[in-house]
């Protein structure tokens, strides 16, 4: 149980921070593609006899980079590339698992999550990846902000926007790997989207959005874990349902808030005070 809580918290850090970039850049579909593609890496890990999480790590980063380069250098529309990536990885994974002799241990855990049985090695990997993610985002914070808000201006201002975009894709790939055991490949998209989307409703600052998003991610993980234990439900899916339920509730709450306080633009405010 202690491992499960740690895994949940480590996952919350990664998905809280990177989820913010996924949501503000409208990269939710990309995060779906990258996460499902990672199954190819799991299969590769099985086939080569190494830890599937490590297989996923290298395969997912390589695929994300490949997709990024293809989209930037060719006329292929981004969502087409994502669709191809999505199914290619899954299909490859299925075949590789089938080719591996014997019964694949833990396959179900990779697809649907198994936070209760996260081994110590995986926790260690998650911690390292979290440190990498936090460091890169800290160092490149102002560049990522410019890239997300107005990429063309970023290029004019002199930042290497293409390379930054590829780095961001790598960070999404790393986050996906962190989340695999927590909610499973199929549902990773939920944790990359919902905590950040919920945080967006409570603040206009990207930094605060990240902090809130990590907090919400932790609440979903811990709350979902407790509920799944109490009801004997699948842990990963319960975490996702808890996050969906709280998100919908927060939508209702923020709508009530905006109806009570009428937002007045600064221009109108000045006109009203001039009268």
């Amino acid at each position, binding site marked *: 149980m202690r491992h499960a809580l740690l895994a949940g918290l480590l996952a919350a850090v990664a998905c809280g921070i990177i989820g913010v970039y996924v949501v*503000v850049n409208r990269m939710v579909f990309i995060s779906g593609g990258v996460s499902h593609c990672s199954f190819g890496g799991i299969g590769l890990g099985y086939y080569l006899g190494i830890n599937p999480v490590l297989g996923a790590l290298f395969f997912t980063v390589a695929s994300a980079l490949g997709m990024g380069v293809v989209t930037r250098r060719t006329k292929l529309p981004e969502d087409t590339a994502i669709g191809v990536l999505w199914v290619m990885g899954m299909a490859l994974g299925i075949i590789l698992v089938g080719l591996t002799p014997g019964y694949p241990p833990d396959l179900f855990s990779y697809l649907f999550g198994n936070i209760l049985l996260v081994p110590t090695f995986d926790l260690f990997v998650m911690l390292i990846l979290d440190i990498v993610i936090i460091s890169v985002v800290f*160092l*490149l914070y*102002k*560049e990522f*902000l*410019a890239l*997300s*808000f*107005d990429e*063309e*201006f*970023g*290029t*004019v*201002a*002199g*930042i290497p926007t293409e390379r930054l975009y590829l780095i961001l894709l790598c960070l999404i790939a790393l986050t996906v790997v962190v989340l695999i055991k927590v909610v499973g490949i199929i549902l990773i998209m939920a944790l990359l989207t919902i905590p950040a989307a919920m945080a*967006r409703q409570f*603040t*206009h*600052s*990207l930094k605060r*959005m990240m902090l809130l998003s990590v907090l919400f991610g932790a609440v979903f993980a811990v709350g979902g874990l407790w509920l799944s234990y109490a009801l004997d439900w699948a842990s990963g899916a319960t975490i996702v349902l808890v996050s969906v339920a709280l998100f919908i509730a927060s939508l209702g709450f923020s709508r009530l808030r905006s109806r009570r306080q009428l*937002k007045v*633009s*600064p*221009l109108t405010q000045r006109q009203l005070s001039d009268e």
Partner: protein
Amino acid sequence: MATNEVVKLEDVWVHYDGVPALEGINLAINQEDFLGVIGPNGGGKTTLLKVILGLIRPGQGKVTVLGGNPERGRRFVGYVPQYSLFDRDFPVSVWDVVLMGRLGQAGLFRRYSEEDKKTARHALETVELLDFKDRQIGELSGGEQQRVFIARALVAEPKLLLLDEPTASVDAPMQTGFYELLQRLKQRMAIVLVTHDISAVSIYVDEIACLNRRLFYHHSKEISVEELEATYQCPIELIAHGVPHRILREHD
């Protein structure tokens, strides 16, 4: 090249998938110029700005910005893109947006310096928006947002300011304030303003060029009726606002 020449385009051609966007453009812009480029939509006005910025490479011809190639020249160029191209709900403040203009100066991996922040404050004072520095960008009106983007272009302390359709979403009373701001700025930098708002432009700018794949420019406000009609591809009736004197001089 003359020492006060900021931009020089020599026989520049740009094609998109074989369709010409700019044909044989020859253009020289000097430090003291305040140039308005007018012409119909699709005539290549935005393409011209992007060529100067090095965002588009011409198929033919040479582009020189401040003595070097456009990519190197970018550090001296301030760019105010068309207003509509950003997400109004983006969680970023006016202050953050203006600071983005200092990215070239600040350097990778570092925080913004005190110098960067001082320049940002000064730029916001120039556009009279310092009081709004903590507001989320979407909370401002169209004209105010446009001034934020001008401030963002100014923080790089450019020698050339490029504005793409800056008054497209700004109504008439705001436009006067905007053009007066530009007149103050032209003391310190060359300005190129791209627009299809002929009347306002003709009052405030010092030179006018017509662009519809081909460029008509006389380093002055002289544009003939024939050149205007060739640019807009239809008969033109000139309507001038404000003081009823002839704004566009006749060209023989």
